[in-house]
């Protein structure tokens, strides 16, 4: 496979509801996670849902981090996609610590496409 990046798909729970419903705390946690993960922040967008819940997305030079919180369950879902450089696992550790999740399930997925498709593309361009 031609690897394009690493994607962490994370479920975290047993986190304090007040933290998961505080957009500014989440904003600060995201910025700390980005710095710790050695990534470069381009844009950060947060939305506070009514009556509760926050979604935050960070556009990075290295891809993205997204987080969705359910304060009523003490749960948040995060995904961190880093291509090339950066340390997504370190970034996630900072997020977990900042949002005080006691339980975390982290799946690491290597992202990319089959090498065979590059060969086919090259062959197609030569035949043209």
């Amino acid at each position: 496979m031609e690897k394009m990046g690493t994607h962490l798909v994370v479920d975290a729970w047993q986190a304090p509801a007040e933290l998961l419903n505080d957009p500014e705390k989440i904003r600060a946690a995201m910025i700390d996670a980005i710095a710790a993960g050695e990534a470069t922040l381009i844009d950060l967008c947060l939305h506070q849902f009514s009556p509760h819940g926050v979604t935050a997305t960070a556009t990075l030079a290295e891809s993205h981090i997204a987080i969705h919180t359910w304060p009523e369950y003490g749960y948040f879902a995060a995904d961190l996609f880093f291509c090339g450089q950066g340390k997504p696992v370190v970034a996630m550790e900072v997020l977990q610590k900042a949002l005080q999740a006691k339980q975390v399930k982290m799946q690491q997925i290597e992202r990319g496409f089959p090498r065979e498709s590059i060969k086919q593309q090259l062959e197609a361009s030569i035949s043209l």
Partner: protein
Amino acid sequence: MSRIKQWKAQKLLKQYQQGNRNFIKIKLTQVNLQKVNLNGINLSESKLLKIDLQQAQLINANFTKANLYQVKLDQAQLVDANFFQGNLTETSWLKSDLTGANFSGALMNQAQLSEAVMIHCNLVKTQLKDSECLKTNLTGSSLTGAIFTDANCQEAILTKTVLTNANLVGINLKNAIVIRAYLHNSNLQQANLEGADLRFSDLRNADLTGANLSYANLENVNLTGANLTGANLSYANLTAAKLTSANLQQVILQETNLTGTNLLNANLDQADLSRAILTQAGLLFTNLTDANLTGADLTKANLIGADLSGTNLWQVSWQKTIMPNGKTTK
């Protein structure tokens, strides 16, 4: 690889009116294009030297890797325009609307940006050395890793601006509004922040060596691990600020309001705290060696474990103060 072609302004305007938007790698020099409408134009990799585009409409225009040396864009409409990796040296953007524009990786040294609207701009790793940004509105913009040295940003608005890892040495932010900004790990050596409003900003591990923060409002700022050696914080408001493990050697805190400030493990060696208000401040394990606390108010302050060797304590107010040995004064 195609070469850059010299174009005449009239030809460009005619083709634009006919619906052409792609003008990649063209060259225009010293022409007057004031007030033209070129919304959505693609001028990527073009050379546009000394062009006058004042009051032009350039919404969503693409100037990726273009050279705009000494171009005038005063009062132009440039919402969502793209200047990625462009050469914007000595350009002028006075009072222009640059909301959402992308300047990532661009060279903007000595640019004139006073009173420009730069809300939510991407200025990641942009070089803005010696630029003029008087009253520029940079609310919500991202300047991660930007070089903003010796820029004049008096009265600029940097609310919620991201300046993590930015190089801000010698920047002038006198009377600027920097509320809830992210300045984590930024370099603010010798910066002028006199009278600036930095409430709730994140300045963790920032380098403020020799900075002028006199009369600044630093209420609730986080300066944990920051280096403030030799900085001037006289008459500043540091109410409820966090200064845990901060380096405050030789800092000037004359008449500074440090009510409820957390100074745990801070180094205040040779600091001047004369007439400072330290009511309910947390001074646990602080180093106050050779510090000057003449006339300071330490009412209800906590000094457990603090080092007071050689400290000048003349006319200090001690009321219900918890002393280094744990005993409370009357």
